């Protein structure tokens, strides 16, 4: 179906099916989403919280909770490799992917979810960024900026070529929208979530080694370029997943802001991962609630909450480290005598 100017964005995306996914896993995911919905409805009825009585809010919370796990999970590795910008670059190429999806749907009259085309295009862009950096032997701001603007320009051109009906629905991709988290989009996100957490679970040690000390990792026999590619591909998946409620423009914030906050508080890498997920969950849950309450855009609200948490973490970190310094004076005096 083709979205027309009179179709609400919600309706335009809701009935889109997920092609290529066999019905068994789809049914299983659907069943899970239904049970989640039942649970939140029950909580809503018991507590009288109004927002929990809407189906789209159930899905928004589900998607938000999953994003708040996988975005900082990947973001922690990116930030500590000083690759925070890569999320932004991939988000803008994902926007081109959305435009491709909308274009194909309009021209061929099919119902491919724009998020699926976004995943494909963002993954291709991720590989391109990796290849560029391998050939030029460095990640640099310039190549990242070129990929970023190329993606956005391509998206803008495709959309304008197809003007009219398409331009209407584009806001939801730029800024995200709670109300457009359809059942099938929630399923796509669960799929992305499973892939991302599984891959990080299996390659955690290798990713950590490469992040901390790339040369030593190479000496230890790790195929560093390969892990870099895995990392950027996962970033592409996270970015597209999070785009649904965060929007293209703000999605990178989820990769960076909670991670930066956690780095202020954590001592170990595991603590940092955990703390960044907790901060992201807080930001998402509080952000979604506020955005429902005050009818503000969800992505923006979530980011503002995340930044507020970050500021809090910085202040707390300062208090912590000033306490530690007092302790360190004693400790280092002991060490000197020990040496």
């Amino acid at each position, binding site marked *: 179906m083709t979205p027309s100017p009179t179709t609400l964005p919600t309706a335009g995306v809701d009935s889109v099916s997920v092609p290529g996914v066999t019905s068994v896993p789809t049914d299983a995911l659907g069943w899970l989403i239904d049970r989640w919905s039942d649970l939140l409805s029950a909580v809503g009825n018991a507590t009288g919280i109004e927002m929990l009585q809407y189906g789209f809010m159930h899905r928004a919370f589900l998607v938000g909770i999953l994003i708040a796990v996988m975005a900082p999970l990947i973001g922690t590795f990116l930030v500590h490799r000083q690759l925070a910008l890569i999320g932004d670059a991939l988000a803008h190429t994902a926007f081109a992917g959305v435009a491709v999806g909308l274009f194909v749907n309009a021209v061929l009259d099919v119902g491919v979810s724009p998020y699926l085309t976004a995943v494909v295009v963002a993954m291709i862009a991720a590989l391109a960024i990796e290849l560029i950096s391998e050939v030029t032997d460095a990640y640099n701001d310039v190549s990242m900026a070129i990929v970023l603007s190329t993606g956005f320009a391509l998206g803008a051109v495709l959309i304008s070529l197809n003007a009219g009906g398409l331009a209407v629905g584009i806001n939801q991709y730029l800024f995200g929208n709670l109300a457009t988290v359809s059942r099938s989009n929630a399923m796509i996100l669960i799929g992305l979530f499973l892939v991302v957490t599984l891959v990080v679970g299996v*390659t955690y*040690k290798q990713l950590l080694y490469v992040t*901390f*000390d790339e040369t030593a990792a190479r*000496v230890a026999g790790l195929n560093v370029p390969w892990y870099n590619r895995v990392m950027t591909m996962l970033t592409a998946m996270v970015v597209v997943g999070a785009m649904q409620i965060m929007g293209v423009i703000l999605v990178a914030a989820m990769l960076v802001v909670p991670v930066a906050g956690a780095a202020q508080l*954590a001592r*170990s*890498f595991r603590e940092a991962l955990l703390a960044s997920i907790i901060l992201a969950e807080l930001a998402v849950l509080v952000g979604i609630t506020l955005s429902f309450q005050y009818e503000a855009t969800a992505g923006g609200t979530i980011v503002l909450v995340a930044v507020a948490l970050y500021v809090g973490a910085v202040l707390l970190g300062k208090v912590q480290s000033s306490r530690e310094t007092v302790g360190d004076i004693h400790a280092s005096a002991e060490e000197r005598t020990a040496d």
Partner: protein
Amino acid sequence: MTHITVEDVSFGYTASPVVQDMTFSVEEGEYVGVIGPNGSGKSTLLQLILGLYAPDQGIVELFGRPSRAFVDRDRVGYVAQDVTENTKEMPITVAEVVLMGRFPHVGFGRVGSDDRERTREALRTVGIDHLAERKITKLSGGQRQRAYIARALAGEADLLVLDEPTVGVDAESVGAFFDLLDGLNDDGMTILLVEHDVEAVLEHTDRVLCLNRELYFDGPPAEFADSDALERAYGINTRQREGATP
């Protein structure tokens, strides 16, 4: 057993070679210091030995196997100049860094209690077990280098390769650092040390390699002091630089 073989090796990032016609080998249990002026190809030589680059010409072997294709990666421990410059903000504890030495053994499996025990043991050997739960960025330069050595020990390395490990380490700790290396060598560890501090190399190692693109000297420290290798290696470099300026 021969740990390192370098045979007729030349290498350059561009057309002009950084390392030229170099031949030497390092046997098990040796303590070898590599000295030479800045830009003399010391670090490049290490990277060739570690298999990070393929030589343009010649053979580089680790434990009798070509080092590019070398598979027993855990047998080599690598300690570079302080890497924390790049990872200033990274929250990671000393224990977590040292545990990385176990990763080549563990592969995609889970880290077990045996791995943690070896990590603790390595931290004790280098004398920083009381700092295990500290953030690595909070350590002094000397303590950090000990942590990287502990990482190599945790990996059960037979060969320790160090690239100017004392850069940024305060003078007091440098002495203790070399004592640690002496101790490890006494326990049978093969050590290849690239170091800018010629005095320290002459004092601590059993064998000196002095190079500036080519190998100028290969022998015991006592002979090195009597030779004119130092003047030749360092002097030529000065002349080259003068010649390069238009």
